[in-house]
């Protein structure tokens, strides 16, 4: 429906201040990005608020989009996901530098007890194998072990840190770190093969 080339053209036109192009860009891209925001934020009202923030940012930064560096959808999704992760991190304040966590490399965010509740898409994270450009990614995700795939998808689509993935999967932190690391390595190997 939304061919990558059309999104690229519309985003470039938005960067030149073309408002109708931006509206069309919004119409074509928002169903996918809204879905991403809902996965991350779980509440429709919050997802809408973050989408507002993100599209305002997309309009303001569109002039800096460079199609040689990223696809239009990836570029916009990075902004949506950053806005959503900022929101999640604000609600779950992390220790600031110098606040006593100087020795810890990561995992300085505490798991939220209610993290698995109020979920609009409850159940295991299963994705459709797409037909289009991303078919290869779908196939490569299938080559991962179940735990590797779940860990990566929970981190990406739920915005969970390592320790939160560990509590969501009721698995030891060390195992989760290794699933994520090995899963990413395997994904890269598969995508470049």
């Amino acid at each position: 429906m939304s061919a990558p080339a059309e999104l690229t053209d519309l985003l470039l036109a938005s960067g030149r201040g073309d408002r109708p192009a931006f509206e069309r860009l919004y119409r074509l891209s928002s169903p996918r990005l809204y879905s991403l925001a809902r996965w991350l934020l779980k509440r429709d009202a919050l997802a809408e608020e973050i989408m507002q923030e993100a599209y305002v940012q997309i309009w303001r930064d569109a002039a800096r989009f460079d199609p040689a560096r990223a696809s239009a959808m990836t570029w916009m999704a990075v902004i949506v996901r950053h806005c959503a992760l900022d929101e999640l991190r604000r609600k779950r304040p992390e220790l600031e530098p110098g606040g006593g966590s100087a020795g810890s490399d990561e995992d300085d965010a505490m798991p939220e007890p209610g993290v698995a509740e109020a979920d609009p898409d409850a159940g295991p994270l299963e994705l459709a194998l797409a037909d289009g450009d991303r078919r290869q990614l779908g196939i490569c995700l299938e080559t991962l072990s179940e735990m590797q795939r779940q860990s990566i998808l929970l981190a990406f689509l739920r915005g969970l840190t390592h320790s939160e993935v560990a509590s969501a999967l009721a698995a030891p932190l060390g195992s989760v770190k290794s699933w994520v690391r090995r899963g990413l390595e395997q994904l890269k190997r598969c995508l470049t093969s």
Partner: protein
Amino acid sequence: MNYRDPKLGTRLAAEYALGTMGGLARRRFEGLMAADPWLRREVRAWQDDLYGIVELIPERTPPERLWTHIETRLWPVATGRVVPLAPKARPSRLWQVWSGLATAAALLLAVAVWRAPAPPSPQPLAVPDYVAVVSDRDGRPAWLVRPAPGGGLAVSALAPQALASDRAFELWLLPPGGAPPKSLGLLPADGGARLGVAPERLREIVEGDGLAVSLEPAGGSPTGAPTGPVLYLGKPLPRV
């Protein structure tokens, strides 16, 4: 940790793109990334792979009011619905949004700045005379930096910069060849100051990859390396 190890760099870039890094590690990595084009490329490559996941999830059309809200935020006069312009009116949110956009936008500026022509070779003895304009990601000049007549660096804010009371702006020298940034001191959010900087460091500024300003806790980076997002960049230009 040796971030120049390609295997480690690739792994950290992947975890940064995935978003599993905790706050401290993330901010430290953003500081490194700002000074290292290779790390930025690695992050972009991982984003390109991982963000494909977005195209595997089912679409869901948002309610129509969302577009109306976006339009009203962007063009309150044209749409006839005047509402408070949230993002510009709340300076405290500014750096939060920016830190989130370190990969998406600020770094593109960083690349553009670092591609500027290399400065001429410095004089071997005297401190070269130069001036550097440190600008924000929209190219708005924020500070003027130049060697002070009596030694050290004279810095002056060209416009007052929004800064939370528990934060500080720290100026960094980016040495040539992607070596770790070296602190030059804290910048005033408003007005001018003189930073005590050794003459050899003043020369290094010309030889290096420019200047960067990161957001740090009050008092400056606790680690000696940038821990917060890089918000401003500049490149010294010889004075004629």
